[in-house]
């Protein structure tokens, strides 16, 4: 199939679908009409689009954890605990890493070993292996909207199964679930595969069923400059909208500087709406803020400090929802108690800040302006190299380093952009690679980093970057040489 940013015909979709549903035996359990019937009966309080819309209207921020274990019963217990004890507003199902690579046979081994060992040997819930039936068991056992969260370049079968099971949201996108999550998957393939996932949601929309889609905002979660992640979020939003997706949540991962974080969230929402309007898409847009995605302190009390500060920023930025970390973050997958504790600290902070917003000082306005300007530089160039086609543009832009995600493992990523923090902790750019920024913008970044270098009495360089990556684990935002 030729790559372009155009809504798939039903022919194209159903032809691909035959192959998709044959990728693993559980694919045969998916029946579109039966699934539509099932989804029509999902009550409002278990619908992602409905709950997000209500939160947006009320101006509150919802809290959502990450969680997933191998076996159905254990996973249900975990989710119920996060719902009842943790007071989560929205529930996730984190999918294991083998499923993300479509290695369903290894999932079977993991499932078997988990049963034997009496503990999860997988780092998530293998939804494809459990099939529609297993996924519905989970959905029916809980009382909140349920979303799949993963990192799957080819999530076609997974998407078919989870939506048919009543899960009303799916995280991911052609760029955000490929470049940070895979080494060898081409963008041509991941764009086509995510067009499929989005078209599936579009089909349900055409049947009158509202489903939510959420591109993954934080990308590598490591010093990603806001304009890079915002540009990619807007691209994935546009690609989804073209396939008929109507309910989109765009995301951003906390960088740590309050002004920059609030500015990034505001810029993202405003600019995405502008692009949706410009390209004629009617989208119900909400936002998600990810608490700190980088290294965490080992100490649980300190981790609570990081978690709470992320929650406060989410509230002040007016995010529709916040993705919650746990006090076990530094040591791996959390216990259910630690997971619930993370949600509770988050919700307490959100509730204390309910209704409070950061008023708009000059500094915030300027940061918003800068982020929008940079984002536009990137997006203009992507459209240009794609000769007007966004999908083609994305592939070309990555080849040319116009789109470039710091610290991503993919060989299709240029990896030439190097970010570092300025003296106030805002993420700036040290090496621009081929980012299509104006000289003025580049000089501005450079001047901010030089200011830091003078303050720290050292040269600008890679060691700053390493220090910044390790800083939060050591308790600080900016990696100063003397910490």
């Amino acid at each position, binding site marked *: 199939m030729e790559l372009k940013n155009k809504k798939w015909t039903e022919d194209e979709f159903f032809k691909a679908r035959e192959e998709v549903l044959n990728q693993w035996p559980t694919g045969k359990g998916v029946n579109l009409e039966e699934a539509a019937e099932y989804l029509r009966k999902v009550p409002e309080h278990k619908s992602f689009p409905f709950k997000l819309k209500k939160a947006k209207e009320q101006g509150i921020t919802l809290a959502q954890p990450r969680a997933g*274990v191998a076996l159905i019963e254990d996973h249900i217990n975990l989710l119920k605990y996060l719902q009842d004890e943790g007071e989560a507003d929205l529930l996730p199902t984190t999918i*294991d*890493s*083998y499923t*993300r*690579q479509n*290695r369903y046979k*290894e999932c079977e*081994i*993991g499932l078997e*070993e988990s049963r034997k060992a009496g*503990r*999860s*040997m*997988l*780092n998530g819930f293998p939804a494809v292996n459990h099939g529609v039936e297993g996924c519905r068991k989970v959905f029916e056992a809980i009382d909140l909207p349920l979303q799949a969260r993963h*990192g799957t370049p080819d999530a076609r079968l997974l998407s078919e199964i989870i939506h048919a099971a009543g899960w009303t949201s799916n995280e991911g996108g052609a760029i955000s679930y490929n470049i*940070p*999550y*895979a*080494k*060898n998957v081409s963008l041509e393939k991941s764009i086509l595969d995510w067009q499929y996932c989005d078209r599936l949601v579009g089909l349900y929309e055409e049947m009158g069923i509202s489903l939510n889609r959420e591109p993954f905002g934080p990308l*590598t979660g*490591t010093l990603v400059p806001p304009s890079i992640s915002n540009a990619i979020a807007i691209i994935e939003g546009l690609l989804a909208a073209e396939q008929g997706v109507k309910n989109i949540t765009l995301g951003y991962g906390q960088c740590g500087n309050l002004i920059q974080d609030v500015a990034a969230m505001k810029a993202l929402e405003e600019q995405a709406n502008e692009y949706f309007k410009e390209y004629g898409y009617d989208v119900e847009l909400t936002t998600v803020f990810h608490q700190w995605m980088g290294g965490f302190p*080992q100490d649980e009390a300190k981790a609570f400090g990081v978690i709470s500060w992320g929650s406060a920023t989410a509230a002040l930025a007016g995010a529709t929802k916040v993705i919650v970390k746990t006090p*076990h973050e*530094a*040591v*791996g*997958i*959390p*216990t259910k108690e*630690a997971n619930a504790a993370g949600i509770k600290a988050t919700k307490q902070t959100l509730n204390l800040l309910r209704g409070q917003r950061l008023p708009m000082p000059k500094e915030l306005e300027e940061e918003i302006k800068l982020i929008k300007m940079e984002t536009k530089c990137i997006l203009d160039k992507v459209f240009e190299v794609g000769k007007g086609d966004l999908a083609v543009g994305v592939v070309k832009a990555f080849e040319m380093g116009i789109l470039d995600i710091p*610290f*991503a*493992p993919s060989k299709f990523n240029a990896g030439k952009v190097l970010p570092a923090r300025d003296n106030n902790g805002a993420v700036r750019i040290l090496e621009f690679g081929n980012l299509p920024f104006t000289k003025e913008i580049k000089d501005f970044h450079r001047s901010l980093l030089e200011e830091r270098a003078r303050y720290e009495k050292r040269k600008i360089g*890679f060691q700053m970057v*390493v220090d910044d*990556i390790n800083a939060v*684990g050591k308790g600080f935002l900016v990696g100063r040489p003397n910490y």
Partner: protein
Amino acid sequence: MQKTVVLGVIGADCHAVGNKILERALSEAGFNVVNIGVMCSQEEFINATIETNADAILVSSLYGHGEIDCRGLREKCDEAGLKNILLYIGGNLVVGKQDWSDVEKRFKGMGFNRVYPPGTSPEIGIRDLKRDLGIED
């Protein structure tokens, strides 16, 4: 003589940040680093080691599947003629918060010479590596 080490992240694990930092730290410490990146199979580790005649294999696993991914690695090394090759592993090796001494014991039982908990600084691994390879500091 400069020692060569093979560095990579095993399994379906795509955590690239620590890998890039480790590469830099090892290079600065004087090693010839063969970085095979993220999402590497056992075979990729072994092939790279044979091709570059490396002195040690440094495995990272940050997503909790380390136990499944590493099973049989020592035996495969033996079969490939890499008898007694140094095998290090570090990261978030298991799912959930477990007692570290248990985890260490389990991985040493699987044939790893050294096993590191999450949050270990590169310097510690480098110090051990120099000691194990008989490099003077």
